[in-house]
């Protein structure tokens, strides 16, 4: 398998992130590029996947309006979740055909990639059967929700590095009642990594558990050009499928 291309996109509105992923999924399906891990920095948003139930949203529209939080319905699996500052959101745009189209294995590998990264900071992440995500000491530290189009994945995971955990009180995360969210900062205090450190460690852990020989960092501009590329208009600087 070729290397995993990784890019930090910087600030991205949630809707623009969806468009970017759509474009990149198409480019990947048409063989214009390889597999990607993208890190967008989203403003606070709530998103709900296809498994979503209205009752998982605890806040009323007025509260959301006051906080300036938009709600997006997206085509990934899973229920409500929150994204925003202090959280490491990772989009995984990967061809699943080369992975035997085994969806659960892909989810389990993402979990293992995150657990691998947590180990760097001495945390023992664990998985719970039937509850996709990564947990530390009974509290949830990372959520996973994936969509697949033309057998290419998008969306991905969200690892709580140092977000304001009170945002999760707006919802029942993932539709689960009575679960507690935690973060690297809550667990590690001053020893917690910053977002840049988390990006590095998670990219390494993901590449290892998803079976890539290594990672290749690229810039956001390359991703944007690929996402709007037309077939026959191959971009030379793009890390094409190797």
């Amino acid at each position: 398998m070729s290397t995993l291309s990784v890019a930090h996109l910087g600030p991205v509105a949630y809707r623009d992130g969806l468009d970017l992923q759509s474009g990149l999924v198409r480019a990947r399906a048409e063989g214009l590029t390889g597999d990607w891990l993208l890190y967008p920095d989203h403003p606070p948003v709530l998103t709900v996947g296809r498994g979503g139930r209205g009752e998982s949203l605890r806040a009323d529209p007025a509260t959301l309006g006051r906080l300036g939080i938009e709600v997006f319905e997206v085509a990934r699996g899973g229920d409500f979740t929150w994204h925003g500052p202090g959280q490491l959101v990772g989009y995984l745009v990967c061809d699943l055909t080369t992975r035997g189209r085994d969806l659960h294995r892909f989810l389990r590998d993402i979990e293992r990639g995150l657990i691998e990264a947590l180990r760097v900071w001495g945390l023992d992440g664990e998985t719970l059967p039937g509850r996709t995500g990564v947990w530390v000491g009974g509290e949830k530290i990372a959520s996973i929700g994936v969509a697949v189009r033309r057998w290419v994945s998008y969306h991905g995971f969200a690892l709580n590095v140092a977000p304001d955990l009170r945002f999760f009180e707006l919802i029942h995360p993932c539709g689960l009642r009575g679960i507690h969210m935690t973060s690297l900062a809550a667990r590690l205090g001053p020893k917690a990594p910053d977002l840049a450190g988390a990006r590095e460690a998670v990219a390494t852990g993901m590449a290892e558990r998803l079976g890539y020989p290594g990672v290749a960092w690229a810039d956001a501009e390359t991703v944007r050009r690929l996402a709007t590329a037309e077939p026959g208009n191959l971009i030379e600087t793009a890390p094409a499928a190797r």
Partner: protein
Amino acid sequence: MPISIVVPQLGESVAEGTVARWLKAQGDRVRKEEPLVEIQTDKINVEIPSPAEGTLASILVAEGTTVLVGTEIAVLAAPDEVVGGKPAAAPALAPAVAPAPAATPARARAAAPPPAPPAAAPEPAYASHGNGGMVASEGRNLSPAVRKIMREQGVRSEEISAIRGSGLAGRVTRDDLLEYLSRRVAAPAAATAAAAAPPLAVHVPLPGYLAPQAPAAGALGPREEVIPFTRVRKLIAENMVRAKHTAAHTHCFDEADMSAIVALRKEWAPKLEAQGAKLTYMPFFIKASVLALKEFPWVNGEVRGETMVLKRYYHIGMAVGRDEKGLIVPNLKDCDRKNLVQLAAEVNDLAARARNDRLKPDDIVGGTFSITNAGVYGAINSAPVINVPEVAILGVHKIVERPVIRDGQIVARPMMNASIGFDHRVVDGELAVKFLRRVCELLERPELLWFYA
């Protein structure tokens, strides 16, 4: 040739998927590779692309329905085929001109019955089906569900012609056919086979291993048969091994004098039957368990890492055997807030949906404690496997008249053995024994529910 759209293989451990959203409506033209439908499993949502260009002739499975991998969910007609055009807003009476899905071989493998034909007041989700899923047969429309049962039960079309249908324009519905079959099975020729089977067995063909074997044609046939695991079987196998590997399984046993419950049920079953609810023993077992769980909260929990999570809600799992389709344990939500009549209705509904592959994902997750009744198959005792991550499971069994001593006299009483499988990591033997005794006591003296529930 119509093309059958099935839920594709989605991975080694994926046995089923939920139809999350139809991206095309019945009658829409689709290009090859264009997304048709979203299927969800676990935390993944997959768009299934169309295998060819054509027209979506009929949608067989409604949004929100969970079906096994391999189930046919739609039929695609080739571009040059005549199809029923745009779907009618409401079921029409005219015979459909949609291609006959029954002709496609994949259908025979479909594990879940397609949605029942629209009743007099169709749900909106089914309205778009129109009559696209039905074919004209002997001048009468038969739904996919009816045809499936006909195939499984070997019902001839002459028999169907003789049934007075209660559906639109005298159409024979699934219920008509099941009602007919219940009488047909009762005929003398089949009586012996039916007598031993539980009541619902008339709906379900006997699995291969229970069906009467034809006398061996000769001694030359193979003496062993190799049958690969189905996906559901693999999943059950994995769950069982995981349960046995993680929980420190231990069992203990008790017995209950069921005189009071037997009398209560004898009196109330006909009354509830008149209201349309079948009263089995399960609601009594649930009721007794919930009160006992409230008194022993440690039994209603989950091991999560090195923590014990106690739950103050009571979602009681109920093991449902489904012959060769394999065991499944859906759960009834918030049993502490329901009376016996409500529990009876929900038990019946859940069991029926489990057998007909109509469970929703929510039905099989979130259980806090489970009950398994091996008595329906005749067992007088069992050592059940815990439905992890729960920490205990109650086993209930056949009620048998046995001699017992009461006031120095030998008398016959309807007795039942009860067992508990518990995770000895967190539930001590003392607790398990006390809990089980309390369940038996509540069954022996249901008036305690008056005083303490």
